[in-house]
């Protein structure tokens, strides 16, 4: 006999979210629930849906950056002024940030970075390899905690708890979103 959901099931009639596909929207919702009101970014294909969600949100201020370390300084200033910021970048951008990360690390200012990984899974561009391989080690060397997420569900849960550790426990955290989830870049 085929089992069916009963009317008492709270999920009845509502499809479970497909987080493999829709993790960016669920991540956006998690960051909104954490009261994030500022987002800065250097564009990345893996972050495109999340970037669009924030840009279209009139309650969130967004800054497009010329280089990723600007976002670290802006996020520190935003916290000084009383609002929570998230910085979106690709793994290659982490290398641009290293000295500027001394600012939130040394001032013990909450920082949340979401990093889409390159150079680790099905990568076709050899120029992405060095920084992709060095991303986690670089972050940890400067004093930023790096947390990896490999599935859509994993991304959402990791961002949710990282937001708590960043904004409430004064930590500097990067969530590294695995390239296996993002898929091979389409040309």
């Amino acid at each position: 006999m085929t089992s069916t959901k009963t009317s008492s099931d709270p999920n009845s009639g509502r499809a479970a979210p497909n987080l493999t596909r829709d993790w960016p929207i669920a991540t956006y919702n998690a960051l909104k629930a954490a009261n994030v009101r500022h987002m800065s970014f250097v564009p990345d294909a893996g972050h495109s849906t999340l970037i669009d969600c924030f840009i279209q949100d009139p309650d969130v201020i967004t800054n497009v950056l010329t280089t990723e370390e600007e976002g670290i300084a802006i996020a520190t200033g935003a916290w000084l002024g009383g609002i929570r910021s998230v910085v979106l970048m690709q793994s290659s951008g982490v290398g641009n940030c290293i000295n500027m990360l001394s600012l939130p690390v040394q001032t013990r200012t909450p920082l949340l970075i979401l990093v889409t990984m390159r150079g680790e899974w099905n990568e076709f561009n050899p120029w992405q390899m060095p920084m992709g391989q060095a991303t986690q080690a670089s972050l940890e060397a400067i004093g930023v905690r790096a947390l990896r997420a490999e599935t859509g569900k994993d991304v959402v849960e990791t961002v949710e708890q990282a937001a708590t550790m960043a904004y409430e426990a004064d930590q500097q955290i990067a969530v590294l979103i695995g390239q296996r989830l993002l898929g091979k870049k389409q040309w």
Partner: protein
Amino acid sequence: MVSDMNIPTMNRRAAVDKLLAERDGALVVTGLGSPSYDVHIAGDTDANYYLWGAMGGAALVGLGIALAQPDKRVMVITGDGEQLMAFGGLATIAVAKPQNLDIIVLDNQHYGETGMQSSHTGQGIDLSKIAEACGFAKTDQLMELDEVNELCEALKEPAGGPRLFVLKVKAENLPRSLPPRDATYTKNRFRAHLGLPTC
């Protein structure tokens, strides 16, 4: 050969004194090195946020504060070398269009902290023209201390966007006046000044 007419003579501390005497509640962020000492010796307050490192970060920290506190004016006081490291940041600030962010560059055309090596601004790079090209609402380059009086008045006028002013100051290493080096202390008192919880 460079004539004496082109060598800046403005006293940086006298200029900063004037700017801070007329700050009118502005929040102040300083770039590392001499600008931090100049602002500190003018009078330490909870509304000052001094950088001791993170070179290239001052104007962008200022942007973050300005976006978070739209009803307060933010004044970044930094040096030519520090702002040169955030060349692209001027583009980011111009695109962000904050109406409450003013950047003051104390431009002695040298890296004073490291042995007075010549910087780009003594070799033809004019940061006020760069900011103007980026789309800043108002920019200027000041050569004389008397001009700072007019600048103080101009800064009280509402801005249509970010403003940047280069003050050509004498290249000299004045006695240091050291702000607190404990970064969390400075952060917490700045936030407390704004009525924000310290943790």
